[in-house]
Each structure stands twice: as C-alpha cells, then as structure tokens.
C-alpha cells in the first residue's frame, strides 16, 4: 500500500477554494481552482500565486561551502559576487547527465541556499550529503519552511503593498535573480512563469496568513496546470520531461548554464561534457508551434522528410498563443519546419528558438 500524500501548510486554503488536487511527487497539490486557462491569463495579465511549498529548500554552511558548490554544480557560484544573488544551474552525475536543475542563492561567505525540485528530493539530498562530507559542509534541509510564488506584471507591487514602508522599499529594490531577508521572510525576485514576481519563503504558520493577505489584495490562486502552461510558454525546462539523468545539458538547451570557464574549476561531469562539446553536439532543443489543430505531448515523434528525427519532450496548449506549443529534442541543423506524429497523423509544426512568450509578449513569429 502506498503512503498517503503529504500536504503543505496551505492545504485547507486549497480545499476551501475548490481546488482539484493531484498527487505530485508524493504531495497533494492543486491542479486548478476552476479553470487553469483563466489562472494562466491572470498571471500573464495581473498577478497569480502558486503554493510551491512542496519544493525542497536546503541550506548549506561551512568554511568551504563555496568550493563545495563549485565542484557540485555545472554553473559557477563564483559568479555570485553580491549577497542575495542567485544562479540557475544543473547538478550533474559522473556521466554528465542531469540529476536535477535548481536555483542557488549566495547569502554569505559561509552560507548558501539551494532550492531543488520536489519529486527529486530524496536522490538530491543523498547526492548533496554524500559529496558535502569531504568539504566539511553542513547540509540542512529546511522542512520547516513553506513557499509561495507570486507572479505577473502586478505581482511585486501587490506583494510589497502588504509590508511596512521600509520592507516594501527593500523588496522593490531587489534586482532580478536576487533575494533578501525581509523581516522573517525570505523574498527572491525569481520565478517559473516568464513574468516578473517574487518567490517568498516563510515558516509554515505564516504561510496561510500571507496567502489570505495576497487573496485580499486580488492575487489569483493558481495550480500546477497553469504552472506548466506558463513555464512552457516561457521556454523553461521541466526536470523529468525535458531532461533526466541520461541527458547532457549540452543537448537539451542548457549549455548556457554550464560554465566551462575558468578551465581550472573541476566539477562533477566536466570531463564528459568537454568530450561531448569537442566531438560536436548533434541535437538541440527547439520550440515547436503546431500549425494545425491538435496538442503536442511528450514522447511524440518529430518527423523530418518522412523519418523519425527527434522527440517532443514537453507539450501543451498555449493560452497566450491559442495553439499548441512544445519543446522537442531535434537535430541541431533542423530548419524552420517539421512534422509531429499525433495519433497516427503527421501534423505540420514551425520551429523556433525558445521562449514563446516573455513578459506577456509573444516572442515567436506566427503564421
């Protein structure tokens, strides 16, 4: 018999708001509160909020924590020079495959915070702990914390409006991909939607209070359904779909997150990536827009000249473009058009570079 799903500090809020829930990585999470398309539009046009408390917050401390992270991660935390600055990175295995993607915050010379995915919590923690030992770094999973992501063009203003003048000012002064302690709260100008906004880490008791305040300020509750359509429009990766432990970051559109310079920095998976880079990478991640009715979905074949040439890794219907979009692993030299096999038929698709949408604006040329 499987274990009952875990719930976050906001479960009663979700149920009271009529959320339809699903088991996501062992957590009972809201998929939508009525209409995921409406929730999607709320984020693109105004402000929406997501309970992301299921994600794993890990605090790392020690004299050698910076050295540790420079070895553990494919991106280089030495790039973070100001306190509060954050970095998006992959964590690789010895074969250069992606164990997880994550955000790391530089909070002090001996203190960094990492946020990893919910579904990969166990293997991520085991991996981090194992490699932390030789650096003498303490690994502290913050299971005492909840997280609410507020996203949209009006998100930051609505959040700041709930705080005192001093805190509000500090929050609004945050640059993109930066974080700060605001009172007892940890506020980061990060997100997974392609819109501006904050991700706020608070303790479990505070979370429902903040949620209610945000609700009263007109922020719409949004579920995992909208979260997926938003991130896909923004060209953002979903671990487990767009990449996994067998995927090198170089072949799935994450080469930009790998810091080969400085050359003296050894990191887990480096030698495998260097070999692959030097041999020439033959696939890339493309943004596909389906030209006819239908929905792109993971695992569909990409067809070029009548032959299978690649695979869709993520697909959905884009509420902003009003047609189906997807990310696909395709030949590096793929041109502007291809087909996708959907339920036995070959449907035409146009090929673009991600993202499809950023800050509410469509970024791909549509026919």
């Amino acid at each position, binding site marked *: 018999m499987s274990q009952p799903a875990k719930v976050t500090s906001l479960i009663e809020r979700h149920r009271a708001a009529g959320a*339809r829930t699903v088991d996501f990585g062992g957590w009972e999470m809201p998929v*939508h509160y009525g209409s995921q*398309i409406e929730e999607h539009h709320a984020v693109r046009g105004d402000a929406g909020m997501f309970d992301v408390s299921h994600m794993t917050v890990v605090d790392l401390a020690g004299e050698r924590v910076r050295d540790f992270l420079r070895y553990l991660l494919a991106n280089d935390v030495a790039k973070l020079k100001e306190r509060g600055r954050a970095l998006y990175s992959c964590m690789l295995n010895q074969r250069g495959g992606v164990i997880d993607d994550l955000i790391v915050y530089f909070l002090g010379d001996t203190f960094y915070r990492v946020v990893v995915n919910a579904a990969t919590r166990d293997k991520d923690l085991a991996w981090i702990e194992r490699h932390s030992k030789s650096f003498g770094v303490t690994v502290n999973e913050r299971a005492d914390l909840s997280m609410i992501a507020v996203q949209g063009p009006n998100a930051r203003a609505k959040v700041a409006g709930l705080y005192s003048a001093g805190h509000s000012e500090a929050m609004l002064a945050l640059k993109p991909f930066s974080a700060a302690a605001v009172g007892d709260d940890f506020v980061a100008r990060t997100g997974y939607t392609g819109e501006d906004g904050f991700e706020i880490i608070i303790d479990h008791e505070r979370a429902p209070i903040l949620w209610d305040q945000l609700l009263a300020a007109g922020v719409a509750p949004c579920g995992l*359904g909208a979260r997926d359509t938003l991130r896909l429009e923004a060209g953002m990766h979903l671990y487990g779909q767009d990449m996994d432990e067998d995927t090198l970051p170089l072949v799935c559109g994450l080469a930009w997150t790998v810091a080969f310079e400085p050359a003296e920095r050894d990191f887990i998976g480096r030698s495998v990536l260097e070999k692959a880079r030097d041999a020439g990478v033959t696939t890339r991640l493309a943004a596909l827009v389906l030209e006819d009715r239908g*929905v792109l979905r993971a695992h569909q074949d990409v067809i070029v000249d009548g032959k299978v040439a690649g695979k869709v890794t993520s697909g959905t*219907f884009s509420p902003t473009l009003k047609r189906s979009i997807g990310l696909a692993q395709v030949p590096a030299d793929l041109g502007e058009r291809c087909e996708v096999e959907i339920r036995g038929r070959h449907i035409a698709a146009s090929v673009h570079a991600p993202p499809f949408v950023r800050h509410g604006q469509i970024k791909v040329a549509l026919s």
Partner: protein
Amino acid sequence: MSDVPEDLHFTASHEWVRVNEDGSIVVGITDHAQEALGDLVYVETPEEGNHYSAGDACAVVESTKAASDIYCPISGVISEINDALVDAPELINEQPYGDGWIMSIQPDNADDVEELMDAEAYEDSLQE
C-alpha cells in the same frame, strides 16, 4: 459532486443522451467527464450524414491533459453537429448539458435508448 440531470440517459463512457420529441437524440459528455478532462481546447466532431454503430468512437475532445474519444451511444446517423464548439470548446466545460452539446443522431431504432443507464444508475456508477 457533479451534476446528473434526471431526464437524461447515460453511458458508462460518460456520454449523456437527451431524447427529442421527434425521436432524434442529442449527445454530449457529462459534468463528471468535463471536470476530469479540465479546460477543453479542441473538439473533433463527426461528419453530418455519417452512420455509427453503438460503441464506435465518433468524436474527440482534447484538453491540455489528454485527448478523449467520444463513443456513439446508440447506432444511428449524425443529423447535426454543434459548430460553436470549433471556436469555443470551453462551452463543454461551462454548459456540458446545454450549449456544450456535441451532436444529434437519428437512431436506427428508437427503443435502443432504453438500453442506456438512467440518472440514478449513472450516479451510482460514479460512486464506485
């Protein structure tokens, strides 16, 4: 709790049937079905004039979650389809028993409707 109107007939695959006075039937999917599918983005309707046997897949509704076949509830000829669904598939979510109707069928045998579940039987089946 999903809505199950008393005056309709139902199939195990979550289609509803309304019998018109002239013996033709109107077909759609139930409130339970639209809720399970989520926001619908495309509907593939059958061609008017085509004949289908009971149990034949004759239409498709597609949401971001999944594509789902709609099965012909009783044998007959498609007499009308709801054109509004082409541009507004969300009508099925908003009014599954009203403006979200999918097609009308002229049954081969008017009595075939009696083989379908009534509201109570369908409601019971949802509890299992």
